[in-house]
């Protein structure tokens, strides 16, 4: 547990270093507004077809906020980019990525939670590893099964939740 505390302390401090409070609140506000509007938006379902990959398509591996997902996209498994499919449980522990949004030119800190309790979704496999690090840096590693601490530890799919704007160093 000491290490777990240390991990979260490190992640939190790192996040605090990279984000301003104002930007985080603004981002959370945008996220909530966006989440409310999400079901109303038209969604291109032909992600695996011949259609050109779109950086703003939550069903495409090229979606900008999926920059460090190695797994199955929950948006193709009954969930969305920020919600788990019905009957699964989100992982309380996660790995973190920093992704560039070409829509507004900002870099965002993203939490990649796994959705757990059912076997692999098997749909929309996505393998992107921007700034991903090996197992010895677990907070940045996408090879670990982040359902490891859930009561049902089976891995189903992954989501991508914006935590805040990453400040430029």
């Amino acid at each position, binding site marked *: *547990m*000491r*290490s*777990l505390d*240390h*991990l979260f302390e490190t992640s939190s401090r790192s996040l605090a270093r990279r984000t301003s409070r104002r930007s985080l609140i603004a981002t959370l506000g945008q996220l909530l507004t966006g989440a409310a509007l999400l079901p109303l938006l038209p969604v291109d379902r032909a992600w695996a077809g011949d259609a050109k990959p779109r950086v703003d398509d939550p069903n495409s591996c090229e979606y900008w906020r999926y*920059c*460090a997902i*190695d797994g199955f996209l929950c948006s193709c498994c009954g969930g969305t980019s920020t919600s788990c499919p019905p009957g699964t449980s989100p992982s309380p*522990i996660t790995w973190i990525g920093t992704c560039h949004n070409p829509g507004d030119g900002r870099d965002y800190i993203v939490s990649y939670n796994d959705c757990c*309790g*059912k*076997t*692999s979704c*098997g749909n929309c*496999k996505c*393998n*992107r*590893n*921007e*700034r*991903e*690090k*090996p*197992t*010895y*840096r*677990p907070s940045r590693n996408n*090879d*670990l*099964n982040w*359902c*490891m*601490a859930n009561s*049902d*530890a*089976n*891995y189903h799919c992954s989501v991508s939740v914006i935590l805040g704007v990453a400040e430029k160093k």
Partner: protein
Amino acid sequence: MRSAPLLCVAMLGVALSVRALAASVASPLPAEHLSVERLPAKTPHWIYVFDNAFSNEIDSRVHLFDGDTYRRLGQIDAGFNGSVTESPDGATTVIATTYFSRGSRGARTDVVEFTDNATLATTHEIVLPPKRAMTVPNIFNVAYSADGHFVYVAYITPAASFGVLDPAHGTVLGEIDTAGCALVIPSGPNRVSSLCESGRLLTVTLDAAGHEASRALSEPFFDADADPVFVQGIPTAAGFAFLSFLGEVHEVDFTGAQPAFAPAWSLVAPAEKGKWRPGAMQVGAIHRGLKRLYVPMHVGGEGTHKDGGTEIWVFDLVTHRRLARWPMHIDGASPVLAVQVSQDAAPLLFAATDSSDVAVLDALTGHVKHIEKHLGQTPWLMLNP
């Protein structure tokens, strides 16, 4: 002339009648007896191919494949997100894995299972605390001590530690904390090293009971921010080689009480650096007798460290010279995600691809002898005990 076709038809009819008559008087097929196949004598060209079964991870498995006959000889089941190792004498396959009580859900049981390589029957198991590192296969997830007396299992909860097991008596001897460092790199009869976020190696020395006797941190030998090393170490004659994302080779001698680091050298020329780079799930193989290193290489930028190699590059470990580049697409293979080489005098190189095939190459010439299609779903690690 008109009668010629009729004659042909008549002759054909006679021929068919004679054949049918012969068949009716031949002996019937004998009754058969159901049996269980026994493995043939082991050869240096057998390979254990770990299939992570990524699209249905509760069903990972190990395929035993013969690189000479191209036959699949058998299978060892590996549960959910399993890991595999071989005993030092090659007689036993060890799987560290997890099962759920209701198949895909329910109570979790972490376990280490022992399979007799002569029969492929599972002989016994050791139940673990529910802490096993659930991650992609790697030779440092579960490992034997050099003398076979201990088995080490990496734990990540995500707090990092490792378990020490007594395989002979089927018991867990204890757990050792490795905060900030992960995985189990075995050396000698009683040492375990872990890779640290700080770029160091933590080495824990055990006493005869498998408990911690001492620990020491090395100096940093890589920079996890600027150029991290892959966790997939490659066995060398004196320890392991670790490749970095940008193609540096860190050879570590584990024969002494503490690891010793040779000067790093590069797989890529200055003009190639940042363009060509290693990438795979099992990112290299070494023929220890020939002192040759085989690495899947591709052209790519940051974040492509899990992209497969479009070429396999061959290096001399003594001179650090590149001996060959073997483009894989010429022979119809897709990018290579795992490599392994047999250790005999007529070595085979095995290359598992991102389309689930395993190519069998002459490791001296690069000649592709065979491509075994769909050897599992996601063959990401191969062992050649």
